[in-house]
């Protein structure tokens, strides 16, 4: 958020949501608000099988990270991810980079 601003996050997350919905139809009930936050997920989750709900969210996150890799490359994306979730091991956020 600090890097891209609300507008940047909103645009990227909206695109990721569109792409994730192609794989997981129920995500069409979620939306991105003007602050760049996801809305509607909790309501959907309450009525869903937890495993399918988790899978949908993983797909959404994968799409978001995929977009970042497309735009700014794997190294920077990995760096951003490390800032947010420092506990994730480097090998789990290599995005196909050659070691």
């Amino acid at each position, binding site marked *: 958020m600090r*890097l*891209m601003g609300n*507008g940047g996050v909103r645009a*990227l997350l909206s695109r990721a949501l569109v792409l994730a919905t192609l794989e997981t139809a129920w995500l069409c009930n979620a939306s991105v608000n003007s602050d760049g936050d996801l809305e509607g997920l909790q309501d959907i989750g309450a009525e869903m099988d937890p495993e399918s709900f988790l899978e949908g969210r993983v797909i959404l996150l994968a799409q978001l990270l995929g977009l970042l890799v497309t*735009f*700014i*490359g794997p*190294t*920077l994306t990995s*760096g951003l991810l490390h800032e947010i979730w420092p506990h994730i091991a480097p090998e789990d956020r290599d995005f196909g980079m050659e070691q």
Partner: protein
Amino acid sequence: MKKPRKTAGSALVETSHGNRAKVTIRKLSTGVRGLDEILGGGLPEFSLNLVGGAPGSGKTTLVHQFAFANATPERPAVYFTILGEPVIKMLRYQQQFSFYDEAKVGKSVRFINLSDLVLEKDLEAVLEEIIAQVTATNAGVVVMDSFRTLVRKAAGVVGELEVQAFVHRLSQFLTASEVTAILVGEYVQEEMPDNPLFTMVDGVFWLTQVTERNSIVRKLQVMKLRGQASVPGLHTISITADGLQAFSRTLGLDTVPTRPSRRKRLSIGIPDLDAMLGGGILEGDSVLVAGPSGTGKSALATQFIAEGLRQGEAGIMAIFEERPPSYTQRADGFGLKLSDAEKNGTLELLYLRPLDLSVDETMEAILDAIKRVGAKRLVIDSLVGFEMALAPGFRADFRESLYRMIGALTGAGITILSTVEVEDNFTSLQFSHYAISFLTDDIVRLRYVEIDGQLRKTMVVIKMRGGNHSKDIREYVITKKGVVVIHPRRTDYARLSTGIPKRTGPRKEQADETPPESKATA
């Protein structure tokens, strides 16, 4: 009295002669090749600077280079983006440059988006956020891109005085925080007299981009820089895979060393021509070899370089017309093994013909090569080709830059042989239609002369600054050994210099020449 302290890792206060303390302003490298030299050593530490110019002129790239060059984990560079190019795109494009160190992003180089704050809050809130971020990160470098957008948005809401007060407080805070800052904006030069921002900042740098005929000419000008002497004027800049590169209009050669009073003579590799030159070219001279096409200018230039190599003097051949393979092939034909010298690093053949170079870039390539091989001899073949290789917009600067380069190189003891093509008109002897004769110490003129039903070649030394020379017009041929002067001067013809001489002596019987004239085989 308080003792002066050391801050930001540099000695800021010096005492000279025990009674006068003078602050030393440390200069930060801009990370832009050639720019530090233009600025007089770099960007003054803790200064507030403005980079202005039209979109596409290289502003963002320049400040990225500065940020990456100076950012450390302890004193990071904070790059505030304000309603300009989206950060994701900026990161996408800037990482293509070689200076972009991905490992620095996040820790040493931090990007902070102020767009939402600028849109939603007032200048006070923006300043508070800047102060909070700079303080929290202990930033040593701050970039605000685009500052103009911020000011423009604010000016629509508050008065000019409030904007000025904001800039003043920002400037005070950044300096007190030991921050070197650059504000970036799409300003135009005409705004300078009326915009108080230009008075408040310590340095103003303009980047311009002009289309001239079919080429783009990018220039940089230091409009203002407090506390140090920068190189005045417009300097060429280019954007390559390494980012921005600047070429000082003085080529870093503004001080011309004085030539020693006693200089040795260098052989040109043609004994008879050496004799005509009074024993050879004076070391550090600039020699112009002028003549029409096919008279052997390139052959003569090759012999000059090859002789230098034989004497242990490294050389550079900057060639603009022929390609290097044909050059080395001809040299091989003359028995001059240029390829061996190329392999052992005592000779470089620079083929410079990309048609869109600036004169400064070309000069820089030549100067770099001279430094690389430690050259004592330089050939420029030819000046006409050199000028044609430049982008049209740069041709106006050609003679001025050439003058500076030749002056500085010859002053440093490098001997230069340049060729220039002139047209024979058979009524007079042109030295060069190309008004560069003033650049040269010595001129050797080659020309065709009609003698006994043949178009033969003659040479004459027109001028030799600092030495006497032969006045003889000598005939020469191009053989397997290169240019070879034949026959003593002719006394049986008058008006040889016109190309159509008049016989004044008896005609000697002579056999037909078969084959007409042997030439070097490629």
